[in-house]
């Protein structure tokens, strides 16, 4: 690891100012579970590491008045996993958080770090995209809000500009009669996902007919992606075996997986089919069961 400066700003303004300094190559540090690994092994050599630990107002889980939840960027995934508010309002987010690494990793790793690291395999991304979550971005003075599905621009790349930080993630209130879940496949415990599938399906009253649906896939494209063609195929349809099969096949068509050490592209396609089918089948069972698990 190369020598670097380390700063612990105590305000957002200060943190953003250091990050904005064009003279250096500053890197924000939340839990460090990505940053430190990259600095030690993957050639990341920032001139300044900016710790977010002392910056107030970044570590919180807030029950919004509209029924949604706002999660501070520097909230540990362990807190997300165990939060009563999240478990009540968007349990699939707690479920996805629980899939990340190990207890030890989740005690350090933050939700903002998971998103800003922008790995195509980030476990919290698909479900947050499926739930229509928004990223609240700040430059220390002003805030802007973007849909999380527009947040990622490539592997390791986001819409964050120099000097900008993710301040929070806002999960909108769950629509009535909606079912959400996240499924992950992996080679071993504590592995990045081989394929991740996040689903949020809203059903018509008293039936298994889809009113609205969002399906997001992880690790099958340069960024976590929404499977829009699959969603279009599903819209307005009654969920049954045939529809689910057609939708799962469509998801395979839109996924653009690559070969890597975790899996071949062909095997990832198998997983996209199987996992899409499984989340949709779970949703269907839920709807047929009158909206109970």
């Amino acid at each position: 690891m190369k020598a670097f400066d380390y700063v612990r700003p105590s305000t957002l303004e200060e943190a953003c100012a250091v990050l904005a300094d064009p003279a250096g190559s500053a890197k924000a540090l939340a839990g460090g579970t990505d940053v430190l690994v990259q600095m030690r092994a993957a050639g990341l050599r920032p001139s300044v590491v900016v710790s977010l630990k002392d910056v107030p107002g970044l570590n919180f889980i807030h029950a919004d008045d509209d029924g949604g939840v706002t999660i501070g960027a520097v909230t540990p995934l362990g807190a997300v996993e165990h939060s009563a508010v999240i478990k009540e309002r968007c349990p699939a987010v707690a479920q996805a958080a629980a899939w990340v690494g190990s207890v030890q990793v989740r005690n350090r790793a933050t939700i903002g770090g998971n998103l800003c690291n922008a790995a195509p395999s980030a476990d919290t991304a698909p479900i947050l995209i499926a739930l229509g979550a928004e990223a609240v971005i700040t430059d220390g003075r002003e805030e802007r809000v973007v849909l999380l599905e527009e947040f990622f621009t490539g592997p390791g790349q986001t819409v964050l500009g120099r000097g900008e930080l993710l301040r929070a993630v806002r999960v909108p209130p769950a629509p009535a009669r909606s079912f959400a879940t996240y499924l992950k496949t992996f080679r071993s415990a504590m592995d990045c996902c081989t394929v991740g599938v996040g689903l949020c399906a809203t059903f018509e009253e008293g039936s298994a007919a889809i009113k609205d649906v969002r399906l997001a896939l992880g690790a099958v494209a340069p960024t976590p992606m929404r499977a829009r063609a699959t969603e279009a195929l599903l819209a307005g349809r009654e969920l049954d075996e045939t529809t689910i099969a057609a939708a799962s096949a469509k998801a395979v068509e839109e996924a653009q997986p690559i070969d890597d050490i975790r899996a071949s592209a062909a095997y990832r396609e198998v997983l996209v089919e199987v996992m899409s089918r499984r989340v949709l089948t779970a949703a269907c069972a839920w709807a047929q069961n009158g909206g109970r698990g």
Partner: protein
Amino acid sequence: MKTCIVRKGLPRIDAIPKVSGEAQYTVDLKMPGLLVGKILRSPHAHARIKSIDTSAAKALDGVLAVITAEDVPENLFAFYQWQADKHILCTDRVRYVGDEVAAVAAMDDDTAEAALDLIKVEYEALPVILDIDEAMKPGAQLIHEGKESNSTWSVDRLFGDPDKALAECDYVVEGTYVTHQLAHCCLEVSNCIAKWDKRDKLTIWTNAQAPHTQRQEVARVLGIPRRNVRIINSTMGGGFGSKLVMDMKLPIASVLSRLTGRPVRIVNTRSEEFTTAKTRYPYTLHLKTGATKDGKILVRDLTLIGDNGAYHDKGPATINFSSMMFGTLYNVPNIRFHGELVYTNKAMGTAFRGFGNPQVTFATESQIDELAEKMGMDPLELRRRNVNHPDETAACGAEVCGCAMSECMELAAKEIGWEEKRGKGAPLRGVGLANMVHTGGGGRFYGFNSAEAIIKLSDEGTVTLITSALDMGQGAHTAMAQIAAEELGVRLEDINVLSHDTELTPYDLGSWGSRATFMNGNAVLAAAEDARQSLVEAAAEMLEADPADILVEESKVWVKGSHEKHDLSEVVDHTVNEHGEPISGIGRFVDHLPEGYTIPTAFAKNIPCFSFGTQAVEVEVDPETGQVNVLRVVAAHETGTTINQTMAEGQLEGSMAQGIGFALMERLVHDDEGRIVNDRFLDYKIPNIGDVPEMKAYCVESVGTRGPFGAKGIGEPGLVPTAPAIANAIYDAIGVRLHEVPMTREQIIKALKEKRASET
């Protein structure tokens, strides 16, 4: 057997220093003037070195030395000198990605790294051979010029008359099995500090599994007298065979130290560890097994090609050992074995826990199930008809004395629920088992097998035990201390074990091959007997009693029949301070080659004792994703006498986890240019606590070995049968047979697809 300290699951004597962080590893050592050494490694798997320009690196501030082949002795090296094929630094050719090309010593990490970047090497690429079949093709590019072919060593063993036996068999099965390169994944990476002092003495601090032979190796490659080399170990964080043979960073750091006059440290990065710290030898095995219709295995025929990697190391020893275990398992009367080593442009293989036996057992024990299937027989029943028995000599010469194979097998089968589950378990669930035989005491591979130990008592009755048994995490120090404490009659906490310095410890072959408990344990026992004799004599004199009536237990000394117990310290104080006669003991265990040993006819007589074992597993397979979930593993392994129950179970559990990795996850993957692409734990997966299922380890005691208190080694056997047990369970679950490990999700999906295609 009535014992006080042996056969108890006592806590390890190094537990507190390790858990508290007080234990010092070699990387924790600090030294005045210490320099950072780094190695420039080849980015090519095969290339000619056209030129090396070190001038810019040498000119960099803070760089104290830059060396290339020109600055180091020209000697070639290999574990066996007759196979020597590797220079300290490459002269004109590199043969795998990671080969040592140049090295620097600098004031700090950053400077050393910057210096490496400034060394300019011009390469001319040569064809890269990663595959043994390609390497063996006539006219293939030679990896070592001047050799006749890339096939570099072979061995044949023949016992009985396999052809005749094959003709007599009612059933013959045949198949090809494949294993790949695996990394040892020690948590402590390979590292050293070398200090070449003004008297020309070279001291190396490192983490060697065999410091005495490494001392010889360093002297050999540097062309200096052995007496000038001293190796000092610190606490070790794993070995698994990777720290047995000298790593080139030892002579490289030594030369850097000689040139700079300062100690030089070289530490592998994790990536270097994955790519250059050597691997398990991958085998391709063509195996035939033949049996009569009543299930007696008459013959086994194995052709095994080992991927040597770019240079020689433990290949011949590994393949020879494979042949011995192959010949011993089930006491098969007719055996043909052909083993061959082939050079490729990959990292070299070396010793790895199990030493060629896990690869062979994957083939043999998978094939037993295939044979049973063909015969319509329960695989457990087929094994029952072929188990090894005590006091048998196998066709290959193996002298099996104690043997608890039947007990192990029946126990494992019962515990996994064989009768209820085999062939009739829940859908997608299956059970499988596999047997194994392994050495329980190293081998007389050097023409002998011996160990020595020294014990001295302080004037307060505490005991210093000097043994050459290295503790790399397996618990050898605790086992040695228990043996000494039991025999001497002192408390375990009164024993201090020293084993870290070649100037202190007796010459020894090292800790490998489940050798330490059997060999070093016997030497420790003899030393304790020796010291005990002096102690008893001193006590008899002090207490005015007959030595035959003196009892010593838990550091108390008394005369038989008397209630007056004396502290051991009183006796020692008396004999030291009244008579000037301190108490000490020396013990030696020499295990000569037995009568009738000849290499072609009775090779396996080399093994002083055998250890048998069985593992049974239950798995669940997701047929859509290919995910295999190991639900339970039961291991029943023979220990002779279990010196420490907790540690023996720990050895078995750790081995089973490693066996699961071998079976399902682990493989070093190369790209077309020969670069290892999974050189970090993010990509190279080993089982962690979340992957390890419920495990039950049984230590099955047995009689008939010459180990201390009847003990056998248990360090290696535990991962030998895991993979075939899992393969057999997968077959039971979903009806597909995999002949290659690791059995990945993708392979399972592919095999299921092929099965469906063949059924329609």
